[in-house]
């Protein structure tokens, strides 16, 4: 079903907002990770883990899910389709993988945030041990999101076999 122009503009605006918001939230998360890694203060270390969990749970995860949802609506509600163009298909796969890894990894973040909330400075080493993993996950996640953004802005040429077949069928129907 093709969306009417006004609805399409509304959904596109929402999709761009959520997607860029996701990138911004990951940048904020990375700033917390770097702050925790460079600080020698145990209180700062504990506070950043708690802030990282809040940022992940209340900003990154909702933005990721709404970005994925509005992306699906945009694809299915326009002539781009979901499987007709390589850039749409690759963006979809990367978004699903990024969201899946995010949801799985948030359990780890919640674990360390729980430790940070309940322990004293004597266990700062445990909290510090989790930071390299955070830098890796958030860094690679940001890289993937930037790749998706470039694909969505540039829309490189390339139609899938499925897209070609659909286009061929439509042309056959419209030109009997």
């Amino acid at each position, binding site marked *: 079903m093709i969306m009417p122009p006004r609805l*399409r503009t509304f959904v*596109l605006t929402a999709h761009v907002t959520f997607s860029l918001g996701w990138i911004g939230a990951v940048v904020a998360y990375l700033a917390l990770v770097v702050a925790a890694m460079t600080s020698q203060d145990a209180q700062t270390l504990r506070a950043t883990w708690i802030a990282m969990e809040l940022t992940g749970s209340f900003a990154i995860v909702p933005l990721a899910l709404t970005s994925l949802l509005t992306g699906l609506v945009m694809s299915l509600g*326009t*002539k*781009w389709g979901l499987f*007709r*163009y*390589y850039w749409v298909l*690759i963006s979809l796969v990367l978004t699903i993988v990024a969201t899946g890894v995010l949801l*799985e990894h948030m*359990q*780890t973040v*919640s*674990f*360390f945030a*729980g*430790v940070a909330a*309940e*322990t004293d400075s004597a*266990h700062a*080493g*445990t909290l510090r*041990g*989790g930071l*390299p*993993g955070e830098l890796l996950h958030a860094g690679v996640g940001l890289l993937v999101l930037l790749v998706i953004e470039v694909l969505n802005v540039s*829309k*490189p*040429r*390339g*139609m899938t*076999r499925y897209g*070609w*077949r659909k*286009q*061929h069928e439509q*042309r056959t129907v419209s030109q009997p």
Partner: protein
Amino acid sequence: MSRSQLEPERETTTSTPPRTPRWVKVFGIIALVVALLFVISLLAGVRHGPGLHTPSGDAGGYTLPSSVIEGYTPPGGDLGGHG
């Protein structure tokens, strides 16, 4: 935003399926390499999850607070994570 950004152009009028673009092939190779590196890291025993970079795989020998243990479902089924 131009109209072409909102709607696809008709890319092909040929009777044969289009070839896979070079940039898609490059993407596929990169994805394959990343997947292989991930599998190799898992096989090499690189830890993943709360036990990452800790010596014993049980969160560094640290006795976890009970509320943390109750509220946490580790990805690999144990507090050392999987891998």
